[in-house]
């Protein structure tokens, strides 16, 4: 009888340990990047995509690029990506949707995108190096950069409202293209996202 009890206890212990170990294993499932999954309610890839799509649509819906082409005999406008400031209360990687917009500009053939900031400095360093180390036939010339006509700037702002378990977060993304010579805005894009987040009553 006593032996039987010990055997049962050992079996139960093994079962508990097995279940415990199984529960610790991480489960990874590869899913489509297009699938919208919201876990915490914070800014995520879905928001970034929604902003990118809205901005691409608004930018191509406006006539600024066509107007530029008409005033310059068909040459597409050159755009420099400036700073997009995150003025919200959370960490938002702005480059995800800015790069989407850049990709859209380049792939559409309507707009030229020129490198700016640190990337431009790196390119200039390389070009200066080439003057010394590259052969004359393959050397790229200095002073032949394409000057940008417009600069893309913008900001993200958020407003948060919280009461108990419920929270409402509002994001507003504003992007604009500014004429580098006259400082006039030739295009302003805006996208708003509002989220209602409700935490569960019980959390383990």
């Amino acid at each position, binding site marked *: 009888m006593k032996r039987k009890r010990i055997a049962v206890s050992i079996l139960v212990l093994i079962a508990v340990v097995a279940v415990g170990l199984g529960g610790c294993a991480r489960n990874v499932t590869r899913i489509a990047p297009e699938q919208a999954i919201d876990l915490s309610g914070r800014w995520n890839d*879905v928001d970034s995509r929604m902003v990118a*799509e809205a901005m*691409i*649509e608004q930018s191509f819906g406006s006539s600024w690029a066509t107007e530029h082409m008409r005033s*310059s*005999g068909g040459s597409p406008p050159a755009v420099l990506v400036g700073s997009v400031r995150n003025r919200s209360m959370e960490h938002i990687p702005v480059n995800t949707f800015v790069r989407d917009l850049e990709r859209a500009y380049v792939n*559409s053939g309507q707009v030229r995108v020129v490198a700016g900031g640190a990337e431009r400095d790196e390119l200039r360093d390389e070009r200066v190096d080439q003057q010394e180390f590259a052969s004359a036939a393959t050397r790229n010339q200095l002073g032949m950069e394409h000057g940008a006509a417009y600069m893309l700037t913008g900001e993200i702002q958020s407003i948060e409202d919280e009461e108990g378990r419920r929270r409402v977060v509002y994001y507003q993304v504003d992007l604009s293209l500014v004429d580098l010579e006259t400082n006039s805005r030739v295009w302003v894009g805006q996208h708003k996202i509002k989220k209602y987040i409700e935490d569960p009553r019980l959390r383990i």
Partner: protein
Amino acid sequence: MFDRKLAASAALLGIASLITSCGPRLAEVVNNGEVLPDRSAATIADARANGELERARLTEERLQAGTAALASCTPQVCEAIARGEVTIGMSFGQVLAATRTTADAWESRTSGGFTVLTVRPGSRAPDDAVGELAYVSLESGAVANYTYREPQGFRSVSDPADATLAGRAEARAAALLQQGDEYAAAGRLDLALDRYDRADVIRPGDSETTLRIAAALDKQLRPIEAILRYQLFIHQMELEKIEARGVVAANIAEAIARARERVIILEQQ
């Protein structure tokens, strides 16, 4: 007993339903787990198709205008087109070729034998190799004068000499002196001096500019620098030429006399 329990349950149910109805009614835009199709690919493809059509049309128009312009130009105009500069005597087609634009870039108004080409509202001003063009006037089909929009203001070219580098510098320096005078009149001597200095860089050795710089320094109570400038002004003046200038000479001679007087006073101080 049973009725009481029923009434209490109904009351509780009522309160519960009231509490739940206080919350906001939510209309979901995106459901969690939903697969969102990529909308931007279609937008980009549309933009590409439309942009290519427009660009092809504009390029074709520009090339046609360029060919026609080069086929009928004088050597001087042909050179200007090759340099990308507008010049006096060009036709409308040659202006388009020189500015690498098409008729879409300009708004044309004709009255009598005159045609004025201006920037189309809401678009970037066309430019040639020298600068941004504000408007171009054509008389009997040939450019009679044209105006650049520059940081100092508008600069008109109605003579081939105005279009040279020296002519350009002259016009810019004159505009800077005018701005400087306005600042000096408003009591902003620092800004006035800045404009005079810039005019001096563009048109060096000009006595009018030197005198203005000297006066501004004198008023700013900087005697040593003022003396140097007054002396430079006197040096720049050639008295023989002054004598040949009649009435103007009298004014310049007066200015020299005043400059000499200031040098003596400042040195004594």
